[in-house]
Structures are given as structure tokens and as C-alpha cells.
């Protein structure tokens, strides 16, 4: 498939912005702005970018805890940062963090996520079926990690999704680690997407450092999903950071691999070199873009830091507990 210049440059912008955002949020943890475990997407940003770029604005994504670069393509990044900081201007008054961040009513089309791993897989099989049932020409993409795929509900979802032919894509971000447990202690076969095959679900395996390959895989996946063929894209990544920022990572026995990946499998560098070779960008362009992105995010961080914390009345409104509060009993 051929992509337009604009398309290629847009992806580059999001990739760079995602990388810088990732770094800035790690810094925000160190600065005490973020006070809940922050799961960095460092090194895995291309996965987020490829997925969202391949979608229409009317399609849905369901973020996991490690795809913030995807979320900020859909949400006002200021609202997102405030959410991470637990501040009142957050998308959900700072009560959602990124575990519970959605945009159901706005333009972001972020589905309601779940912090119990795996459960979004069957949940969005149902969601996607409902889209089809309502004759909406929309698809849903769910992100989950290699670890999450051990949950039995994923298998139930493959079964139900293939029976009911739903417009959904599961993107497995296989970064070789679940918290402190390496993949080889989670399962004997590292190709996790194989588990969808017994249900006749099409699967692809892609290298997470190659944005264009990812985008091509996603384009294929989207065509299938629009034809109500649920399918799986497994992205082979390597988690560069600890499970959460500032976690003691002395348990990592793959530091050599990480160092190598940072040099030879950096999705930003690889894509940058591709664009340079195609003469679509030059060093000046790169430098300016990076400077602009950094400055913009810094500004948002400053605003978010200055924002106040939510008040009781903001968040514990009766209609936030029960949609029909009159039948919910006393708080």
C-alpha cells in the first residue's frame, strides 16, 4: 500500500509527539506530579500510532495502560495530563487516571476500559456486535498486553467473536514482560496470537519497531473488521522501561537486548531514517518538530500542575453512581 506524503508526515508527528510525551510523563512521575503507577510506552510508541492512523475518526479504540500515545491522538492532551495528575480539569475530573479513561460522549471515541486485565476483550466483542446490530459502520480496536492474554475471558471472546462475526480488532502488545514476569514463565509458545487460530480467527504478527509494517498490518486488519471479521494483530515489542516508572528493575536479565533494541530497533529512528531517505524530511524539520512538541507538552504540564484538585461535589454526584439515582438508594 502507498501512503500520501501528508499521511506519512502525520504519522511521524504523532510518533515523535508520542515519544516526547512518554519521556515527559516519566519525568512527571519523578517530579511528583503523577502519584499512581505510570506504565511507560517507551519504545512501543509505533504500535499506538499505527493503530489510530489506520482508523476512521468514527472508529473506537479501547486503551490499555501502555498506549498513551494512542490516547493523546484522540483526546485533548491537556485533559489527559490533568487526568494523570488527578486534577480537576481532567477528562473525568482526575478520577479516572489512564486506567479508567474513556470518551463516550465526545469526539474521542475511547471506549470504557477496565483495569482488570483481559476483560475488555469479551466486553468489546459485545460492543462491536452492538455497533453492527445498530447498523453503524464503525469498528472497535482493543489493546491488551501479552500478560493480559492469559485471562480465560480472552478465549471466550475469541469463541463468541468468531461465532457472531464482529467488527473488532484485538491488538496484542507482546512486549515480552508482564510486570516482573518474562514471557517464558507465562506460556510455552511465545506467539500468543496462535491462540485465536482454533476459532478460525485471522491473525498477523508484526515487528513493533517498524511503523510502516504495523500500519500495513493494521490496514489489512481494518478491512477484515469492516467485513465483520474479528481478527488479531500481535505486535512484537520489547518493554524498554520497568513495569512502571521508578520500579526497581534489577530483575531484568535482558539489559543487553534492551540496549541493542534502543540502538537498532528504535521505532522512531527507523521511521525517521525511512523518511529521510525518501527526502520527506530533513534534520531541520526533525529538530523543529521535536522542539515544538516538547515545548507544547511542557506548557500543558505547567497548566496541569497549576490546576486544582477535584472537589467532592465534582465527582460524587449521585448520577455518577447510578444513571437513575432515584432508584439507587442513599449514598
Amino acid at each position: 500500500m502507498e501512503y500520501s506524503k501528508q499521511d506519512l508526515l502525520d504519522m511521524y508527528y504523532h510518533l515523535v509527539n508520542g515519544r516526547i510525551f512518554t519521556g515527559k510523563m516519566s519525568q512527571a512521575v519523578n517530579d511528583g506530579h503523577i502519584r499512581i503507577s505510570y506504565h511507560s510506552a517507551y519504545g512501543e510508541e509505533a504500535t499506538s500510532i499505527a493503530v489510530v492512523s489506520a482508523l476512521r475518526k468514527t472508529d473506537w479504540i479501547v486503551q490499555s495502560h501502555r498506549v498513551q500515545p494512542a490516547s493523546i491522538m484522540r483526546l485533548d492532551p491537556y485533559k489527559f495530563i490533568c487526568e494523570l495528575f488527578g486534577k480537576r480539569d481532567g477528562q473525568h475530573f482526575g478520577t479516572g487516571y489512564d486506567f479508567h479513561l474513556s470518551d463516550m460522549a465526545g469526539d474521542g471515541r475511547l471506549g470504557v476500559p477496565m483495569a482488570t486485565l483481559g476483560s475488555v476483550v469479551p466486553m468489546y466483542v459485545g460492543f462491536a456486535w452492538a455497533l453492527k446490530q445498530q447498523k453503524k459502520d464503525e469498528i472497535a480496536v482493543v489493546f491488551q498486553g501479552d500478560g493480559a492474554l492469559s485471562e480465560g475471558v480472552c478465549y471466550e471472546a475469541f469463541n463468541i467473536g468468531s461465532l457472531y462475526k464482529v467488527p473488532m480488532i484485538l491488538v496484542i502488545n507482546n512486549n515480552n514482560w508482564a510486570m516482573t514476569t518474562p514471557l517464558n514463565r507465562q506460556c510455552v509458545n511465545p506467539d500468543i496470537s496462535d491462540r485465536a487460530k482454533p476459532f478460525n480467527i485471522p491473525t498477523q504478527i508484526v515487528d513493533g519497531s517498524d511503523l510502516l509494517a504495523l500500519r500495513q498490518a493494521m490496514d489489512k486488519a481494518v478491512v477484515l473488521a469492516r467485513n465483520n471479521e474479528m481478527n488479531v494483530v500481535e505486535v512484537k515489542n520489547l518493554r524498554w522501561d520497568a513495569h512502571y516508572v521508578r520500579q526497581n528493575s534489577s530483575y531484568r536479565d535482558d539489559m543487553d537486548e534492551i540496549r541493542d533494541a534502543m540502538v537498532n530497533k528504535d521505532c522512531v529512528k527507523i521511521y525517521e531514517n525511512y523518511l529521510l531517505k525518501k527526502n520527506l524530511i530533513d534534520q531541520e524539520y526533525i529538530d523543529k518538530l521535536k522542539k515544538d512538541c516538547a515545548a507544547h507538552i511542557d506548557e500543558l504540564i505547567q497548566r496541569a500542575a497549576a490546576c486544582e484538585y477535584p472537589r467532592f461535589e465534582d465527582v460524587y454526584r449521585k448520577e455518577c453512581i447510578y444513571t437513575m439515582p432515584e432508584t439507587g438508594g442513599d449514598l
Partner: protein
Amino acid sequence: MAKMYLNRAIAAAVAEEMARDERVFLLGEDIINCGGGLSTYLGVPEKFPDRCLDMPIAEAGYTYFGVGAAVAGLRPIVDLMFSDFATICSDAISNGSAKVAFSTQGKCGCPIVFVMANGGRGTYGNFGSGCHHSQCVESWFQNVPGLKVVAPYYPADVKGLLKASIRDDDPVIFLFHEGSTGVSGIVPDEEYVIPLTNAANILQEGDDITIVAIQSMVPIAVKAVETLKKSGINAELIDPRVLIPLDEKKIIDSVRKTGKLVVVQEAPRRGSFGGEIVSTVVEKLNGQNISVKRLGSLNAPIGNGMVEYFLVPKEEDIVNAVKELCQK
């Protein structure tokens, strides 16, 4: 007014609501070929073939499927066959459906009904199927804010409250009693809905003592009340019908008057919803000297076969408890 079996009342409620609102749909095991595992939806799949989904035996997965569909704007009715199986999908219920409104800060609701057969069959003459088919689980969800819990007994109540549950914009755990799918009762011909609020029914007025009977204990308490009359004790009998939101006012008003409360339920006594009722009442009536007693099943798993009868409160247990309190 016609006599109707409880399972027909369920089917009628679902069919009426599906006709009224095309967002309503039904999913569960064995829906198409037998109207659900307990044949509570007979005739519905024929009427609404596109909105009746057979699911593989994967309660967690298909309950989550329902939650997702609700988030996407539909109104699923999830049949779970026996309430014992709610353990398998309690993540979808308690961490899923119950949290949608809050975690979207009111921007999205989760209108979903979880229908389950609650309790044992032993009470009604057949043999029960033991500790994985006959549990009374209403209290397993009593401490999960975001849920509503409905537990009626009579077919007319089941029909009217199920309709209200389907129309409700929040997740509702709807428990009908397993032993009574073959119980019949008078059901109005015209359409009606029984709101989930202020739902308690005063089945018998009386001044001497208040009896609150939950679900399968209602007909047994009705008999006990008759027996007590012969001993000159006028009990007020209340069927709460809905547990969350509990119609506290009617119960408290009654106990304020009688000063005595017996709560009777089929669930094991310890940790049951009866404790919530007793506690709510005494808290609200601080200063008044109130005598209370909870009756419930033994704190033990329920066995297969006729041993179910051994566990569950009987008419004489209610009569004795009332007499004991009235003597004091």
C-alpha cells in the same frame, strides 16, 4: 386477570419490553431451543429471532459481552441460569457493569439486567441439585455500589418488576426463585410496571410484630401469619420485593409501630441481607427498644436431594421466633 406460571410471567415481561424497545435483546445459554436453561423465555426467540442470542457456556465472556453492548447503547438481558454461576461472571457484574456510570463520570450508563434463578428447589417438593445449583446469592452483591438487586416471589411481582428492571438505566440483578418457576399466580391482563422504588408490599397489616420475608420465604410467612392469628398474634408481613434500593420507610414505620422484627430468608443466616435489614432498622430507630430475630438457612452448603429441606426455615420456625419475641 389470569393465572400464570412464573416462567410465563418472565417470558411475557421480556417479550413486551422487546416489542416496546428495539434496543432490548436477550442472551444466554440455550435460549433458542429451549427458551433458556430454565425455559423462562419460551416463545420469545420465535418472536424476536434477531435479538435472541445463544451463547457458548462461557458466563464470564458473555456477561462481559452484554456489558459491552450496554455501553454501546443497547439494553441486554443476560440470562445466567442459576445464580450459583454468578461467581463465574462476578467480575463482569461487579467490576464491569457496576462501575461504568462512575468511571465515565456519568457520561455513559450500563442498562443491563442479569437474570438468575435463586435458591433451592427442595422447598417445593422436588429434589434440589445441591451446592452449585441451589444457593441463595442475593447478599453476594449487597456491598457493590452501582448495582440494584431485585428479588420478588409472586408471578405478578416478577413480571412488573422485571419490566421496570429492563427499563432501568442501571445494572440490575434480577433474581427469581428457582423452586417456583412452576408456581402460578394471578397476573393482571393489562400492561403494568412496578417501580423499583418504594417497592415493599405490606401483605398483612398487624400491630404486634413485623415480619420481613424475602422471596421464597414469603408464602411460608403468609402461612405462619395465619397460624399466628389463631394464637391471637397479629403480625404485619412485609415482602420487600426489591432489596436495593430497599424500601426502608415501610419497614421502619412498621417496626416503629410494633417494636419487634423477624427477618426470614432462605440464604444462610450469617452474612445475609437480613443483617442489613435489621441493622438499618435499629439504626434508624435508636432510642426505641426493639427486639429482633433473623431466620435463615444453616451456615452450611446445601446438599443434593431432600436434605435441602433440612436447612431452610419452615413455617414453625417463623411461628416460634415470633412467639419468642412476643413473650418478651
